[in-house]
Every structure is written in C-alpha cells, then in structure tokens.
C-alpha cells in the first residue's frame, strides 16, 4: 500500500514524457486508462484512510528526520480523487481540439503529477518545490495562446507568485533553524504544547502570506482575475477549479501541524474581506470570464470563513466549488468561442440557439449561488448554519451579490440571434458529467460518514428561507443596477493593481498579519 503513493505523482509525468517524445494522437486512450487507474487507486486510498489510518512513506527508505515524507490522510485522499476527476473531465473536453496539441498534453500531465505531488508531500521544502513547479507549468499554460493579454497576465502571475514563494523560503529557514528538520509529521511529534514563541510565529506568518498569495486573498488577489480570464478555457477551468486551492491545501497542512496557535480570527477577517471585495468587483464587471474569476476570489474568501470554524466545512465548500466553477468556465468557454465576444451585453439569444448549453449554464450559475438539490446549496447551508450574528448577515449579502452577478451572466439567454451550435459530443459529455456530479453531491452529499440522500437533510425551512432572501435581494440588485450602472462600478471595473504596488500590498499584508497575530 505504501509504495502506491508514488503512482499518482510519477505515472502522469511518465505518460506525458512518452506522449511528448512519440507525438502520437492515437495515444489518447492511454490517458483515459491512466486516469481510470489513478481514480481506482485514489478511491482505494480513501477507503484505507477513512478509518483513521495514515499511509506514510519516506522516499528512499530513510529515517523520517532526514528523508522526504509522503503522507496520505483523509484530506489528501479526497484531494487526489478531486484532482483525478477534474483532470479527467478536462482531458475529455480538450480531446481533438486544434488549440491543444501534444505539447499541451505534456504540460497538462506534468501539472497533474506535480499537483498530486504537492498534495501528498509532507516535507515543507518539497511543498515549496512542488508549488514552484506548479507556478512555472501553469504560467506556460496561461500564455499558451501567446497573445498580448495572456503574456501580460502570465508575467504578472509568474513574478508575483515567485515573490510570495520567496517569503515561504524565509519561513522554511526559520523552521529549519528551530527544529533541525523539515518533516511536518516529525515536527508535530517533537513540538511541545504551548511552545509558540515569536520566531515560530514569524515563520507561520510567512507561510500564511505565501499561501495567501497562492490562493489570492484580499490585498494580494489581483493576479487571479488577470490570469484566469486571459488563458484558454480549459486552463481557466483548471486554474479556478483546482490550482487556486493549493493555497488553501497548504494552509490546511500548516495549521494541522502548528495547532497550538489560534488562527480562526485571522482567517475570519481575511475571509470576510476577500469574499466581500471579490463579489463587489465581480458584480461590476461586464466580461463573463472576469465575473467568474472575481467570483473565484470571493468563494476563496467564503472557504476561508469556513476554515476559520472547521476544516470539514472548508473541505466540502472547496470540493463543491471546484466542480461548479470548472463547469461554469467550460460552458462559457464554448459560448465565447462561438460568439467571438466576452461581454455580457453583447451575447444574446443563447436559449434560442442551444437548449442544452442554456440548461447547463442555468444549473451551474444557480448552483454557484446555492440552488436547492445542487451541491452549492449544501455548502452554503453548512456555512450558513455554523456562523452567527454579523458574519451571517455579511455572508447573506455576499450571496445576494453572487445571485445578482449570476443573473447578469444568465441574461445572455434572452433575445434572438441566429447562430447554430454544432454539437460537439465530447465537450457536451464532459459538461454532462460535471452536471450529474453537482446533482449527486447535492442529493447524496458525499460526506465523510454519510448515508445516502443525507443531502436532503439540509432542506430545512431556515436554509430555504435564507436562499429565498438571497434570491430576492439578488434579483433586486440585478434589476436596479444590472443595466444602469453606478459611476463607482465603472471605476471598479477598470481598477487594477500594478505589479510594484502589488508587492507593496504584499509587504503591508505581512505587517498587518504580524500586528494582529
């Protein structure tokens, strides 16, 4: 069992290299074989670790203190399943597409291997290496179109994430001087309770800020909408669905080890600021991809709010959001390609042109806002029942803004326009898989200890009332400000943070963390 840990990391990379060298289109079935195999392994891992067991392997058979540890507990196994699933769907989506040649497949498979490596690695330096690998590969994928927009977004993404990772390196130095090892499990064994001194605090602040850059929290969010809206459809889905979560996974890994500190306040404030800011920006955008990318920022904020309460809430929210956001990006990608325009007010008559895409888009958009019987409703209800007072009101207003901007996207259904969508079976099939998963998760609620149909237990009056309130406020906002915009929305739409100001914001973010932590 322990030796199987290597397979999710190395098999995709090996297959990617083979595809790159041989350059054969007929090799595509091998990818599906690989993904099915990885899925079986990941589910197997999940069944093993579900009883509280931990799979641990040190590369090369060294002792834990000097070797590189790989660890799978229930969180890691869940992320392995999620990553395999999303990569499979996206590989189905891009098959036989002219933009995606064998080089592209090589990078995608390399990305899958390094993401799985990041998920299972238990050594903090290995986490650093894998994060840098993910950054470099995803930068190459972002600029794959090689047009001006994606180049601009790509260099911003690369340099800004590298600066964030430099602070991570400083944190690693402090940990090494303090413990003499970088193995997280070993550190957890030797750390004494209540030993939370200032140098360790500084290291954790650096880790939080680096992971904050990776997951685009409030002051350092600006790389995300640029990168996610400039890249190809499949890459946007991958970035927004999976890769932006690396920061949150990293925070889970860190807080699991240094659990003597109290993080919940820090994450609560960060989450509220991020969620509110992201949703306001999203509402003022006109570009569909920009709306969706700013929504990723706000949903990351909501995940952080969940994380400040309980790791399980963050997990279920994160997994549901991954599926929904990938579906949204893939669907709008087809529409944007067909219409050749990305502005909400320029695309018209989708319902008239393609019923299938319209239904998928309605389900995806409303599920992001929390429609009952879908997975979005479950995550919103779980989050809604576990917060109180002022935070609850804030979350309700954030969700209302989500509704309003989803209505903005759904306004492309109206009107008449004569464009026939040719049915692409592969793309439609991958969308269908995601839609069915949204409903399965919404009804069955794949909990970590679930009975079937346990998702329906959240259909309570309180949750439905919350949903209706958010829907009403969202509709009001959309009716009032969706068409005739306020002046401030125009300003917000053109607001960007340049790179040098982003670095200043990052430094001030670290200083604020030092102040409140």
């Amino acid at each position, binding site marked *: 069992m322990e030796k199987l840990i290597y397979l999710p990391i190395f098999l995709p990379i090996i297959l990617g290299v083979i595809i790159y060298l041989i350059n054969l289109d007929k090799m595509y079935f091998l990818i599906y074989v690989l993904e099915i195999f990885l899925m079986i392994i990941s589910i197997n891992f999940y069944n093993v670790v579900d009883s509280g067991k931990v799979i641990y392997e040190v590369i090369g058979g060294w002792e834990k203190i000097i070797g590189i540890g790989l660890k799978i507990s229930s969180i890691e196994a869940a992320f392995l399943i999620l990553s395999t699933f999303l990569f499979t769907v996206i590989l189905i989506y891009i098959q036989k597409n002219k933009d995606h040649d064998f080089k592209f497949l090589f990078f995608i498979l390399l990305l899958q291997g390094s993401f799985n490596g990041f998920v299972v690695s238990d050594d903090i330096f290995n986490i650093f290496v894998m994060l840098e690998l993910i950054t470099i590969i995803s930068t190459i994928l972002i600029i794959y179109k090689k047009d001006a*927009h994606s*180049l*601009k977004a790509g*260099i911003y993404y690369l*340099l800004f994430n*590298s600066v964030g990772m*430099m602070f991570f*390196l400083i944190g690693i*130095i402090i940990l090494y001087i303090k413990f003499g090892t*970088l193995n997280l499990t070993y550190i957890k064994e030797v750390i004494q309770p209540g030993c939370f001194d200032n140098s360790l605090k500084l290291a954790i602040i650096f880790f939080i800020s680096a992971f904050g850059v990776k997951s685009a929290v409030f002051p350092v969010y600006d790389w995300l909408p640029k990168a996610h809206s400039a890249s190809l459809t499949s890459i946007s889905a991958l970035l927004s669905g999976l890769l932006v979560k690396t920061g949150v996974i990293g925070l889970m890994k860190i807080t699991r080890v240094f659990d003597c500190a109290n993080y919940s306040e820090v994450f609560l404030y960060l989450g509220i600021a991020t969620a509110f800011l992201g949703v306001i920006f999203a509402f003022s955008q006109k570009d569909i991809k920009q709306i969706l990318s700013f929504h990723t920022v706000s949903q990351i904020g909501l995940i952080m709010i969940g994380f400040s309460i309980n790791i399980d809430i963050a997990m279920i929210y994160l997994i549901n959001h991954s599926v929904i956001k990938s579906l949204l990006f893939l669907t709008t990608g087809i529409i944007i390609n067909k219409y050749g325009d990305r502005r909400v007010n320029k695309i018209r008559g989708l319902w008239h042109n393609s019923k299938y895409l319209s239904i998928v888009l309605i389900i995806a958009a409303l599920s992001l806002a929390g429609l009952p019987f879908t997975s979005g409703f479950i995550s919103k209800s779980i989050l809604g029942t576990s917060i109180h007072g002022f935070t609850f009101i804030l979350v309700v207003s954030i969700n209302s803004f989500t509704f309003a901007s989803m209505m903005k996207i759904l306004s492309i259904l109206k009107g008449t326009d004569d464009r026939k969508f040719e049915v692409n079976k592969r793309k439609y099939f991958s969308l269908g898989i995601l839609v069915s998963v949204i409903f399965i998760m919404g009804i069955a609620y794949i909990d970590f200890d679930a009975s079937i149909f346990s998702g329906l237990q959240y259909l309570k009056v309180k949750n439905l009332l919350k949903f209706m309130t958010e829907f009403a406020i969202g509709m009001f906002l959309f009716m009032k400000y969706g068409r005739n915009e306020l002046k401030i929305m125009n300003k917000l739409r053109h607001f960007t943070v340049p790179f040098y100001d982003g670095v200043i914001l990052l430094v001030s973010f670290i200083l604020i963390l030092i102040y409140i932590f």
Partner: protein
Amino acid sequence: MIIIFFISIAMVASIVGLGVSKNIIKSIMFLNLLQANIILLFISFNYHEELVPPIFNGNLENFSDPLPQALMITAIVIGASVTALALMFSIKIFHHFGSLEWDIIKKRID
C-alpha cells in the same frame, strides 16, 4: 553575525526595489537579488569557523550540516528556471508592446 546584518539590509533593499521599480527587467533582477540573499542567509546561519566539510576523513566531529546546501542548490535551480522563463516572456512582451514598462503595458489593452 555581522554578515547576517548586511544580508538583512540587502533583503529589505531588494524588497523595496521590487516595490518601486517600474520596469520588468528591473523587477526580475530584484527578485533574483532577493532570492540570492535568502540563500546566503540560510547558508550563513549554519556557518562556524571550526566546521569541516561533510566528507569522511576519519574525523567524525564538527561536520557542517550538509542539508541546507542541498536544499539551497534546489532553490537556486528553481530560481534560475523562473528567471529564464520570465526573461523569455519579457522578450515576447517587448515584441508585442514595444516596451517593458509596467505602466505602458498595462495601458495597452487591445
């Protein structure tokens, strides 16, 4: 200890440089400088006068710790690849925009 003091000053200077430089090449250079300083910091924390290299020659005491150097070589390799990629992008950006100033490429939205 005096070297750590100077390294810290250089680190702060390179962060300030990242915050004020408005040219992509300068940003890449300051990023390199920051990384070099961090690597130097890690190496110099482990340095003492009496330590010998970790090569077995009968003397089993006073080995210097080889792990930081192994880690930092990896970090240097990563930094080199990030720099190479960023410089390649800046060539492409110069072809597209005719400039490498952050402000100018920000304004040109086509």
